[in-house]
């Protein structure tokens, strides 16, 4: 089974969204004319990221986040030359140089920068290799993807096509049931919070837009961001179906209809 395509057609945000929602484990390879990257996920969380050929050493990552002064980076690298990342991390913690939180923050910032660098790609191949694991010596950080997906989705140029994606505003939203994801932990902007506060199977997107004072374009953009991050789902409006087309429900009575369907079933079985 393949999970590959071109970023021209299926953006990096959509790929991350898929990995996040399907809780995938494995490596995502990105190959474009300007960049290449390898991202490893475990149950939908990012655990490892590199661009180009080589992994960036932990000391450099810490120096980037200014957790280690760049003046000290060279001598530390030299002193701990023989240690792998995991051993080095433990050494830095034990020597009181850095806390575990600082190390995790530094790595998460580094991961996010790599992802941000990929957001701008408008073409390039992606390929997901299931079950690939990070090097056993890497620091065991698991970075949740919701924040970065929302961030990327906000700046994406995909919004032009949103009418295709969300053709009808006469549908409702409900919160996605995703154990372990608390919406309060996610960095939403004011517009997104306003929309979130009206999410209810009884409110159509159009009604939410009116209440939140957003126009059609704005509401589609917000809904799209929330959908991408897996926070909400679209559902049929839980009220009289205003938009049902005429005669959409067959005019026959249910017993007759049942009978017809059963006859068709019997016939199809003989094909």
């Amino acid at each position, binding site marked *: 089974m*393949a999970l590959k395509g071109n970023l021209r057609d299926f953006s990096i945000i959509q790929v991350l*969204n898929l990995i996040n929602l399907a809780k995938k484990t494995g490596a995502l390879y990105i190959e474009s004319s300007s960049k290449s990257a390898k991202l490893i996920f475990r149950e939908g969380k990012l655990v490892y990221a590199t661009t180009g050929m080589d992994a960036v050493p932990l000391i450099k990552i810490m120096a980037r986040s200014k957790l280690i002064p760049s003046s000290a980076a060279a001598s530390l690298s030299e002193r701990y030359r023989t240690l792998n990342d995991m051993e080095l991390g433990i050494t830095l913690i034990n020597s009181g140089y850095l806390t575990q939180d600082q190390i995790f923050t530094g790595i998460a910032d580094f991961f996010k920068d790599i992802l941000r660098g990929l957001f701008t790609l408008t073409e390039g191949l992606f390929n997901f290799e299931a079950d690939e694991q990070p090097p056993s010596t890497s620091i065991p950080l698991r970075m949740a993807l919701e924040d970065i997906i929302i961030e990327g989705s906000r700046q994406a140029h995909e919004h032009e096509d949103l009418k295709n994606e969300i053709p009808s505003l006469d549908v409702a939203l409900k919160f996605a049931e995703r154990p372990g994801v608390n919406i309060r932990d996610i960095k939403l902007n004011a517009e997104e919070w306003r929309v979130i506060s009206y999410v209810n199977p009884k409110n159509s997107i159009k009604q939410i837009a009116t209440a939140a004072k957003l126009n059609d374009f704005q509401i589609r953009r917000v809904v799209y961001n929330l959908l991408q991050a897996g926070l909400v789902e679209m559902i049929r409006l839980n009220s009289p179906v205003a938009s049902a087309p005429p*005669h959409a429900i*067959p005019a026959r009575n249910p017993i007759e209809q049942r009978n017809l369907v059963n006859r068709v079933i019997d016939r199809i079985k003989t094909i």
Partner: protein
Amino acid sequence: MQTQTVKIVVTGPFNAGKTELIRSVSEIEVVNTEKKVTSESEKVKNSTTVAMDFGRITVDNDLVLFLFGTPGQKRFDFMWEILSEGMLGFIVLVDSTRPETFREARGILETFRAYAPTPYIVVANKQDLADAWSLEDIRVALRLDPAIKLLPCTAKKKSSVKTVLLELLYAILEELDSTKS
């Protein structure tokens, strides 16, 4: 007694295999209106359906099933009108090897969600190809509700299409049961 007709509609993005699916089970040569593809972006194939595909299965002496395939573009405006009478349900077909069409497939699905509960299933076609995405990934990429059936298919194979049709019919029975009241 007059012959009754029922309809099943096969819709989905360009090149998903709608014509192929109908052709696999229709007892008549599929009446289709293909034309040569001229647009650059859609050069993956030589011909596309411009009006409806039309297949037929005789059920018994007084019942006929029609299979309609929607054309590669512009699906909805005219569709409800033409097809609503006697329509049992829909198949939304996607090409499992072309993620670039999933966005359009999602648009189709979101449209259905807004309407009355017409039963439909989603079918991941071309599962015989090495590039095919797995059902699990397609379900997430299409944001499919867990209640909606998603089935694998190889439209070129009659047995595969048969399974798909039966699953749709079972979904229709379930829908009838749930609206019995």
